[in-house]
């Protein structure tokens, strides 16, 4: 009989796009003082879900997103993506879309989308093909040769989404991507994002200030409290898909929105 120690247990198949946040905390040290930004946050996100993080300003939702992106390490706890810890940015597992102005202004739209591939030394022809495919996915076919300053705010964020998806990561993180857009563009971009999400099946973690946007987009909404940030409510949005503009004035929508608002008002 073989000694037990030699038998490696079968790993549970790490499903692409699964995110496990286990008791994550984040402490900032600024000039001697310690600030607890996040305290003991845990969350299990199943592959393909659209999860929105909302909370008052400074509740650490962006910090949590930065940790999911591997741009910052948790002070305590752990984060697993695809079943493996994320110690540094890994564009094969996680794509990130930032607020406006994170496109490189000296590159054209397609060069911006190609950027992550260029970093890995992918040959030009392959890069270009992939970029064209992505720009088509986000509805910007034919705009590849334009520079960011020649694109509207909404178009710029479409390019950012294309850039985030170009390496086909199972997870897409979005940090208030539509915050700088006007309301009409914002609504359109929400629908566009849902269309892209449905077409690609990515796990999306989306940070926003807008409660309407949160409920409109999400499968589930995690509500965070003010500093130290923790998750005070985790609600499932049972609204049918595709989401429509009419739902915004429905009772179900209003109830969810109100429930989130009560939490935020309490902690603000």
């Amino acid at each position, binding site marked *: 009989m073989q000694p037990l120690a030699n038998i490696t247990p079968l790993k549970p198949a790490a499903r692409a796009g699964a995110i496990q946040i286990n008791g994550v905390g984040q402490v900032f040290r600024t000039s001697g003082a310690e600030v607890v930004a996040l305290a003991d946050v845990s969350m299990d996100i199943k592959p393909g879900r659209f999860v929105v993080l909302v909370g008052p300003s400074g509740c650490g939702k962006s910090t949590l997103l930065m940790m999911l*992106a*591997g*741009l910052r390490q948790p002070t305590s706890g752990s984060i697993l993506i695809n079943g493996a810890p994320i110690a*540094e*940015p*890994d*564009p094969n597992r*996680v794509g*990130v879309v*930032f*607020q406006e*102005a*994170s496109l*490189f*202004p*000296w590159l054209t739209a397609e060069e911006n989308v190609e*950027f*992550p591939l*260029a*970093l*890995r030394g992918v040959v030009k022809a392959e890069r270009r093909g992939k970029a064209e495919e992505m720009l088509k996915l986000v509805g910007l076919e034919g705009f590849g040769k*334009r*520079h*960011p*300053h*020649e*694109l*509207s705010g909404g178009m710029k964020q479409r390019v950012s989404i294309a*850039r985030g998806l170009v390496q086909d990561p199972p997870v897409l993180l979005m940090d208030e991507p539509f915050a700088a857009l006007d309301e009409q563009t914002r609504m359109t971009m929400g629908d566009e994002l849902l269309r892209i999400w449905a077409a690609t099946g990515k796990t999306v973690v989306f940070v926003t200030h807008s409660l309407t946007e949160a409920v409109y987009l999400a499968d589930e909404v995690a509500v965070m409290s003010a500093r130290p940030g923790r998750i005070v409510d985790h609600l499932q949005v049972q609204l049918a898909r595709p989401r429509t503009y009419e739902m915004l004035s429905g009772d179900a929508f209003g109830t969810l929105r109100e429930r989130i608002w009560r939490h935020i008002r309490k902690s603000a």
Partner: protein
Amino acid sequence: MKASTLRWLIVIALIALWEALPRFGLIPELFLPALSSTLVAGWNEAAEYRDALGVTLYEVGISMAFACGGGILLGAIVGSLPRPRLLIMPMVSSLYAVPLVILYPVFTVWLGIGSESKIAFAAIYGFLPTMLSTAAGIQTIDPQLLLAARSMGATMSQRLVRVIIPAAIPTVLSGLRVGGALVIVGVVVSEMLISSAGIGYLISRYRTILDSPHVFAGVLLVLAMAIAFNAFIRLLERKAAIWQTGTRGGQIAEEIAPGALQPAT
């Protein structure tokens, strides 16, 4: 009328006035010799001017390499590291306000009255603005761009080559424009003060014998040099400023080449 047409008309009018005013005796030839007599004077002593131009260009070239190379290198270091920035920037900024020409006699004592003292003086003169604006260019890079690059897995050197350098280019170029112009000023002025060769020396020598046409022939050459340098920097700026609309650099670029830019949509 288009601004560029108007600009050319003004230049042509000034040239015409330069010829006409002295010719009709409105201004004494000693103060301002006519353009034609200036050109004739220059042509008659062509060999002398050519040699002087050679010396001056040599000095400008070497000083430019020191001023721009050193300015960009040190500016990049100072701009990217907080500690040197705190130590050096206040000193450099206040040094910038000092008329450095007061140091030139000292340089001639150290390095003689040949090209070396001119090169040293002009290089230091042009170095300061280049360094200051390079440091500013690096410091003002949007941190979001660096964060985005990191999120895509860019290494330290990839961030330098693919983000920091391209983002700093417009500011560095505007520093080069000022720094390069100051190099030319530095060389010519130091030649005029204590020297035995170069355009500045010729201007200064002809002035002492009140030979105005020859003085102005030298002035024309310096003018041509400055214009050529400016045109070169503009060429570089135009290449770099395509993405810069909305900023001041972009507006300048639009003035230069309205056709080269596509309308923003």
